[in-house]
């Protein structure tokens, strides 16, 4: 069963802004990172999956249920943590999460039990009886996560879950998400504009940019060797690049680094010889690993988008 299946999904807002542009994609259960810069369409996609927004054209299915016709059924199986503030300030986390459990259709005794359970899971203890207005951002984010988990969803949709957190809080939140996903078997789709977070937590990545699909693949495939050699020299990288280019290599200069497309084992020897000939101080030679940032960069030599 697929977690999410999109077919030509398009969303145009009144006023002509196209947030999603013909997105076609199938995602299997797991911890899925949804990455893209601000305004790439991440939140729009999540809201369409939840039925909070209607698509302009195309179709989307969550857990094999159609978003357009089976929204209610989807929403019973899905938890949602929005990006923005969404907590009333004058009631306690316990009362709020309990209320949200009832809104998901849990009976009252179960709602209380689950509330205690998830608040403990997210690490909220004595504070949970205090009004939420006095909470720190970190505590608020925990409550937001808890209300999305309280009905034990099959899929959790997180929109920028680390928004506004300091580095320590960020680490804790990411740990929590990772544990929720890997230990308890709840599928997660997590939107973030920070690649580092996605890299840390997710096992599958969907990258979108300007509403179009950039890349969707298991995370491992993004960080394999790229077939490029990084040659770092102290001075005159341009000279080395010119020489290597003259030798027929595809080369690009990036600061003090010269990126050379590897043609075989002899490339290493060749580079070494040229460095010696030019009398350059060599700092580093290393096969380049792809980083997720490359997704959003199209000028890396020899690594045309797959």
């Amino acid at each position: 069963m697929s977690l999410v299946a999109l077919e030509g999904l398009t969303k145009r807002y009144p006023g002509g802004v196209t947030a999603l542009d013909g997105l076609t994609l199938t995602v299997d259960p797991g911890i899925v990172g949804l990455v893209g810069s601000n305004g790439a369409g991440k939140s729009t996609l999540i809201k369409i999956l939840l039925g909070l927004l209607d698509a302009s054209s195309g179709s989307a299915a969550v857990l094999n249920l159609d978003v357009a016709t089976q929204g209610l059924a989807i929403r019973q199986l899905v938890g949602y943590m929005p990006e923005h503030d969404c907590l009333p300030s004058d009631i306690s986390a316990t009362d709020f999460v309990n209320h949200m459990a009832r809104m998901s259709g849990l009976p009252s005794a179960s709602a209380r039990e689950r509330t205690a359970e998830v608040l403990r899971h997210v690490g909220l203890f004595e504070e949970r009886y205090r009004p939420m207005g006095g909470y720190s951002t970190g505590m608020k984010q925990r409550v937001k996560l808890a209300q999305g988990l309280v009905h034990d969803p099959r899929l959790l949709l997180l929109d920028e879950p680390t928004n506004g957190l300091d580095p320590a809080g960020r680490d804790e939140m990411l740990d929590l998400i990772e544990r929720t996903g890997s230990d308890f078997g709840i599928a997660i789709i997590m939107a973030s504009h920070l690649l580092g977070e996605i890299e840390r937590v997710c096992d599958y990545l969907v990258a979108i940019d300007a509403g179009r699909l950039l890349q969707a693949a298991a995370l491992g495939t993004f960080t394999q060797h790229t077939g490029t050699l990084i040659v770092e020299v102290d001075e005159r990288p341009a000279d080395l690049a010119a020489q290597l280019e003259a030798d027929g290599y595809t080369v690009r200069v990036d600061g003090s680094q010269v990126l050379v497309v590897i043609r075989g084992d002899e490339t290493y020897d060749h580079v070494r010889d040229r460095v010696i000939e030019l009398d350059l101080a060599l700092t580093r030679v290393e096969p380049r690993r792809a980083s997720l940032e490359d997704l959003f960069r199209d000028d890396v030599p020899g690594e045309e988008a797959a």
Partner: protein
Amino acid sequence: MTSAPLGGRQRSDHGSSIYDLGYRGYEGPRLGRRAAVAALLRHTLRTAYGLGRSARSKIMPVGLVLLATLPALLAVGVIVLFAQFAQSDAAAGAADALSPVRYSTVFPFTAVLVFLFSAAQAPELFGRDQLANTLPLYFSRAISRSDYAVARMLGLLIALLVLVLAPQLILFIGRVLVAPDVMTGLGDELPQLPTALIVGFIIALVVGSLAAAIAALTPRRAYATVAIVAVFLIPNVFAAILVSLDIGVFGQLAVLLSPADVLDGVNAFLFDARAENITVRRAGLDGWVYLLAAAAWTAGSLIVLLRRYQRLAT
């Protein structure tokens, strides 16, 4: 320590267990949409009376109910006194007939309190979730947007019904107990009860839906409160002027533009009593016209309310 730890994952080799309860899934029943709507309605009703909230949020609603029951309590007190000291049943009956507080006059006496209750509590029920941005959490759950609006509206309606019917109930109990014997009392008073219930329901429906529609339009509590008070207390002034100008049927129909006057007309019509409100008396419309107007106000309000929640961006 031979039994498996509940959801425990870490177990040492020495036969002892570390009880890490961890996270457990939920296997129990999911009651779905209907139960969620019912829970929201109940929650709304409780919130309207400040239950489960701070003591401060109880002051306004509970105070208004107490105030609304005051005339009925006084009336019952007077009837009791007369029943004790009057020389004859006939004299007591005469005093009873003179009492200004009757089933048909309870609403005219307490109307302002009903309006104030709606102005104070509807913004709390409809504006809060907009102000705190909580609506996406509701709309991403087992309920639809319309479910939310209807459940909130019905919660407000029932809260208003309590306020409207509490004085009628006191009057009813008082009059039954004062009667020479309970059976006679019940025989006299019971026939009045259905009318009181129907009128009470119509009042709660019109006031509740109108206040809900206005409150839903803005997250700002103060604006909503002022607007609700205004809609119940300002059109009557214009209606009074237009009706007293005596410019024909359109002048008379102006009374229907004032929800407060419409409710007065409904109250007088269904109790078959003289309207307390001078504008309503002067307009001289047939009683059923007020019923139609009440239906129109309700329908219009509900349309505004539901459309607002359909369109509210989340």
